[in-house]
């Protein structure tokens, strides 16, 4: 496994699966006031690399994800995905996204929600794959249920299954386990790690949990707030496949402490 | 208003005008074109130009009748709304009364009320006062239903706040309940304005001896098609005026209320 470091010498942009190249994003608010959400953010993610993004609320994590998903345009800098404009990826139905607010369609059953990407891409629905993913996220037997009948955490898991169903080349996850209890969350982390190890999808995960980031990612990026900037980056040394026991090692605790400290607001260092 | 601002050229004005009014203008042009091309007898369907002519040369006839219709519609609308509001307030004061009255109000406001005009005409007699009564009754139901709903939809938490203040029922009513019903009341006004004009005209049409509705019936029976279409134009203008002023009033009040 040779995940490229962002400090590695710059190669041709095509070498990066995701290249967020010195990007700034400014929003114009209703009153005409400008809000600088992120400033000079530079993130390079290699093919098959798993990167986690940590940072305080409102620091621009979702904004970065939306830029990579081509849901927003950059104000300064450039974003490329697999060497081209990020819209190319979604047009080719090769992008998987699990949104922070799950965005399930209330009028579709769980099964139909997960089948939606097939329908949109105009491909035949693979029911075996759907059943497999439902089992994976622990929701077998809920095929016919509707989103409103599920808890918040269950809905989030459906949205992850939907993001994975087409075996995307790039996976963007925005706090996918935010609404889960600690036990289910740990279980989902193990499962996500397993799926990821099978397919090695290039993944950008936004999370508030230091432990989750360390357990899942090859690399963890820490941001500071207003405007969002990158303040720290660490390479996660644990070999894959990782068992949950990894979380009880000294090294894991040290790294967790280091990241937690970096997340403290300035002045508290 | 100041003339064209710097950023707006006359061309922009034309563009906006076209984008907003292509439909209305298109229909008018189609009408004139249809009449000209098919050459229909002008007794059957008049040329727009002749209609305008009748309007311009006989302003007296139109003004007198339009004045009466407008007055009846406006007075009926105001009285009906006032009555509806009062009954809604009375209903608000008692759970049992509102439980009995609100469903009835809902039923009547979803019945084709205009169909009641012949019954009311018979009950109250062929008279100008009956026209007024009909407009009052037709404006009553929306005002009652919407005000009753508005009196119940208090801003969240505000009721507790007033209780904490130890406010009397009366203070609560004047300072909280009544104000929160105002937006709904304005909706009722907007919804009732066009039916008020329409029902005044229909009542006049069916049994009146004056007013736009009567003028319409008279010109139709005398095959004075220009007069009939002229009446249509005036009726439309009145109706549009009532509707747009109700919309403007609603906007104005809603802005103040936020």
């Amino acid at each position, binding site marked *: 496994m040779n995940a490229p470091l962002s400090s590695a010498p710059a190669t041709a942009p095509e070498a990066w699966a995701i290249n967020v190249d010195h990007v700034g994003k400014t929003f114009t608010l209703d009153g005409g006031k400008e809000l600088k959400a992120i400033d000079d953010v530079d993130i390079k993610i290699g093919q098959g690399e798993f990167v986690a993004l940590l940072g305080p609320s409102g620091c621009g994590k979702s904004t970065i994800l*939306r830029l990579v*998903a081509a849901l927003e345009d950059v104000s300064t800098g450039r974003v490329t995905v697999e060497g081209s404009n990020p819209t190319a990826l*979604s047009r*080719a139905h090769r*992008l998987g*996204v699990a*949104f922070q*607010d799950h*965005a399930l*369609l*209330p*009028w579709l059953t769980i099964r139909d929600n997960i089948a*939606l*990407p097939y*329908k*949109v*891409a105009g491909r035949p629905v693979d029911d075996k794959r759907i059943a497999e993913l439902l089992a994976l996220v622990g929701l077998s037997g809920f095929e016919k249920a*509707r989103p409103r009948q599920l808890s918040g955490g269950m809905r989030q898991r459906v949205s992850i299954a939907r993001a994975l169903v087409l075996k995307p080349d790039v996976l963007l996850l925005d706090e996918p386990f935010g609404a889960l209890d600690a036990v289910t969350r740990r279980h989902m982390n193990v499962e996500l790690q397993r799926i990821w190890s099978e397919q090695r999808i290039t993944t950008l995960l936004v999370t508030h949990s230091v432990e989750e980031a360390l357990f899942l990612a090859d690399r963890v990026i820490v941001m500071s707030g207003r405007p969002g900037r990158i303040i720290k980056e660490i390479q996660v040394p644990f070999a894959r496949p990782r068992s949950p026991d990894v979380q009880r090692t000294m090294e894991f605790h040290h790294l967790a402490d280091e990241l937690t400290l970096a997340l403290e607001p300035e002045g508290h260092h | 208003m100041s003339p064209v601002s710097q950023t707006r050229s006359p061309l922009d004005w034309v563009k906006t005008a076209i*984008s*907003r*009014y*292509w*439909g*209305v203008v*298109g229909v008018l042009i189609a009408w004139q074109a249809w009449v000209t091309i098919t050459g229909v007898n002008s007794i059957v*369907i008049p040329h727009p130009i002749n209609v305008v002519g009748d309007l311009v040369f006989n302003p007296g006839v139109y003004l007198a009748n339009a004045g009466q219709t407008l007055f009846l519609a406006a007075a009926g609308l105001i009285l009906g709304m006032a009555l509806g509001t009062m009954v809604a307030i009375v209903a608000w004061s008692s759970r*049992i009364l509102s*439980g*009995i*009255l*609100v*469903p009835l109000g809902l*039923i009547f406001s*979803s*019945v*084709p*009320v*205009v*169909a009641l005009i*012949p*019954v009311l005409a*018979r*009950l109250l007699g062929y008279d100008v006062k009956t026209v007024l009564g009909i407009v009052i009754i037709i404006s009553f139901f929306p005002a009652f239903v919407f005000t009753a709903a508005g009196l119940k939809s208090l801003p969240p938490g505000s009721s507790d706040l007033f209780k904490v203040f130890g406010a009397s029922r009366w203070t609560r009513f004047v300072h909280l309940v009544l104000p929160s019903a105002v937006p709904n009341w304005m909706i009722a006004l907007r919804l009732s304005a*066009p039916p008020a*004009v*329409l029902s005044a*005209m*229909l009542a006049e*049409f069916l*049994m009146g001896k004056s007013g736009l*509705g009567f003028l*319409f019936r008279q010109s139709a029976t005398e095959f004075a098609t220009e007069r009939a*279409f002229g009446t*249509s134009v005036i*009726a*439309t203008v009145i*109706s*549009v005026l009532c*509707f*747009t002023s109700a919309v403007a009033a609603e906007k104005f009040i809603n802005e103040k209320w936020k």
Partner: protein
Amino acid sequence: MKMTAERWQSLTLGIVGIALFLAAWEAIGVNRLAGLTWPPLSAVFQFMFDPTKAQLFIRAMEASFSMVILGYVTGSVVGIALAGLVHVLPVVRPGMDRLASVIHAIPAIALAPLFIVLISREFTGMAIAALNVFFILYVSTTSGLNNSTAGHRDLFQVLGSSRTTRLLRLDLPAALPAVVSGMKYSVPAAFIGAILGEWFGSSRGLGLLMVSAMQNFQIPLLWSAVFIASTASLIVFGLMGLLEQFVYGRYK
């Protein structure tokens, strides 16, 4: 538990209200409190269900209801179709909005002469009904088509959806509750249109029955015709209300 108790109470009160209304109607009629032109409810019923009158009412109902249905369907289809068109082609929207609201503001009575010439006296009611329904459905559908949430629109973009796929799988289902509400509220509007149309010189229908009964002092006939039209409208309105509840449960 408390919720259901409250529901029961309001249901009971509602029924009591309707019963009181019907009783008052009967009492006023029996005691002639409102003169000879207010018949007791029982008299109206007796007249309405008199077998010798059945033919009269059935023919009138056939005429009126066919105009209601024709107008309702035409108005709904045109309203929904045009709303879909301006949704896909936003350039034409401002002009269409204006045209729809001007048409709405024209009192039906003012359009009658045009319709009588254009499409005959018999179908004037249908045309007015169609116009009334058209306006309500145009407005509710255009606003409904914008009901999809920002999150759902993002989802479709990320999935690489085409405009048509989004229209079919997102915008239309999201608009459905608004469309069905519109269809509910346009029921009385369709009945009004058809009845009005018949007042302007149709030779058939409940509307004609009302006017001629009014002019000839046939009091029970007058009340029966009004009662039939109102009840029919209420029943359809109620059915649409049920459909609306179902759709709201599923699509919201």
